[in-house]
């Protein structure tokens, strides 16, 4: 088990290092002169020179890379060029919206998809299965931002239940905030839930063909009992892979959804920063999101080992 974790941890670190190099190259090296770029056409040469010094661009690329990484490790992401405040401060508040939104959506997606997939699989070919999978097929095809627009239309105007947009802030209370995040999370989750439900269904169907299910049936378990006691845990193995991938889609999708629901998350910040050519903020946000994705991959790997004893001994699955 320890061998397995160490191996995964090494690969996590390597991926992180290479990812930061890629980000650094794209944002700081490829454009040539980031300072001139950030100043835009209106900027004077003196101002650009000043910014160059401020950003440390007068130093070599290697030195800049290491000071950037070193800064991030101590929580220093630099100063935003447009807002003139530390980037960590800018990002900090917004992460408290974006991350809960993503996690909430992931939970919703799992809670919807697993039962739907299992029910569909256990009644394969029935009316229930046909309807559920028909809905899932359409769900997969719906872009989440369009679904979000429709949700706003339905909830705020037609039903008039409550304002679907805006976020009161966590200080206004936990449940109020959760309520404000519910519709955004739901719009984010539904298309992913449709995908997951389809994967779950085919995974369960596949597992039900396995010899050990027949062994379980020969013991006297009914088809349903065999599915619950022996099928589900095995069926979860491929589903975990998809869950890990979905986290990155949800994170990215969240950035888009936030603007529809006027949520003060990372999404709005990153698009503003692109418009204002604030490369420092863009770089930091992209790095954070990539780190989150890589971390999730690592956690999924650990979950694998929990589900599958064959991985715990460090051998190849």
């Amino acid at each position, binding site marked *: 088990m320890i061998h397995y974790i160490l191996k995964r941890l090494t690969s996590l670190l390597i991926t992180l290092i290479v990812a930061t190099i890629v980000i650094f190259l794209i944002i700081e090296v490829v*454009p040539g002169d980031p300072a001139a770029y950030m100043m835009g056409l209106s900027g004077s040469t003196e101002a650009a020179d000043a910014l160059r010094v401020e950003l440390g661009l007068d130093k070599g690329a290697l030195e800049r890379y290491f000071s950037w990484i070193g800064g991030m490790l101590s929580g220093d992401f630099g100063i935003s060029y447009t807002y003139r405040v530390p980037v960590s401060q800018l990002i900090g508040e917004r992460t408290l919206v974006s991350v809960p939104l993503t996690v909430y959506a992931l939970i919703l997606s799992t809670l919807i998809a697993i039962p739907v997939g299992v029910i569909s699989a256990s009644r394969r070919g029935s009316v229930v299965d046909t309807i559920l999978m028909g809905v899932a097929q359409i769900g997969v095809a719906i872009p989440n931002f369009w679904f979000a627009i429709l949700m706003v239309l339905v909830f705020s105007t037609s039903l008039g239940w409550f304002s679907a947009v805006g976020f009161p802030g966590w200080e206004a209370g936990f449940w109020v905030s959760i309520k404000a995040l519910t519709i955004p999370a739901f719009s984010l989750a539904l298309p992913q839930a449709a995908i997951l439900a389809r994967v779950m269904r085919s995974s369960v169907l596949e597992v039900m063909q396995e010899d050990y299910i027949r062994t379980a049936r020969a013991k006297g378990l009914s088809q349903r009992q065999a599915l619950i006691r022996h099928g589900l845990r095995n069926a979860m193995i491929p589903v975990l892979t998809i869950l890990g991938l979905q986290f990155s889609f949800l994170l990215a999708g969240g950035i888009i959804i936030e603007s529809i629901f006027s949520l003060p998350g990372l999404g709005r910040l990153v698009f503003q920063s*692109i418009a204002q050519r604030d490369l420092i903020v863009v770089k930091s946000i992209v790095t954070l999101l990539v780190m989150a994705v890589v971390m999730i991959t690592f956690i999924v790997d650990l979950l694998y080992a929990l589900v599958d004893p064959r991985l715990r001994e460090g051998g190849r699955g």
Partner: protein
Amino acid sequence: MRHLSLSFIIGGVLTFIFTFIAILSFFWTPYDVEAINISGKFAVPGLDHIMGTDHFGRDIFSMVMVGTRNAIAVSLVAVGIGMILGVPLGLWAAGSRMNGGSLIDEILMRGNDLVFAFPSLLMAIMITAVFGPGAINAIIAIGIFNIPVFARMSRGGALSLWTRDYIMAARVAGKGMMRISYEHILPNILNILIVQATIQFSIAIIAEASLSYVGLGTQPPNPSLGRMLNEAQTMIFFAPWLAWFPGGVIVAMVLGLNLMGDGLRDMLDPKLKKRKAGDVTA
């Protein structure tokens, strides 16, 4: 090919319709997509404008036609990039692994993991932040993300084929890794690659729409379904058709491709057929 499945027929018909519309838009649209007609703005869908007009009085149906064409073009190129680069990489990784060079395989697969850490949107954000927005960004961002998808798929398929006896027989005849990959492996994984390509195509259409929606994709005045939805958002309360039609077209197009992919998979996968017959009853 065995009998056509229902999914394949429905999906094929939908895909054909949208491909036809996209090609038609090169030669004919009901109105000029850039023609502004302020007096005719916010026309409700009717005989003159079957999908209505927007805040500039532009014909939505014409814009949807050209938007569909742009979405298909971007997706086609992006998936093409993914296949052209990904499939050889996957075949190479599998071939090296089976011929004692697992280091190359390991490096290629770690590279894949790395790309997976950059969802298309993040890649597009970085490229746009540095180079400014444009449809090319969308193509590159979606294309890069497709490379590991095809690489993994062809590697997995190739690895299982490399242990087959007919590959052994080819090696006994003295054939090398490249020749075997091309002659024996590729034709036998083509099925799964085609199925995956239709799925990736549908994902690319959604990705293109998302990027255009946030302004990182196709730029005005070139119409795009995603940006039409963005513009519709502020007017949705009094002109909901602006959101209905472009969104509906995306859904129908993606649905068509997915159904076609599912249908193809069912028709091409003999294993699935065998399984169906070998089921244990409830």
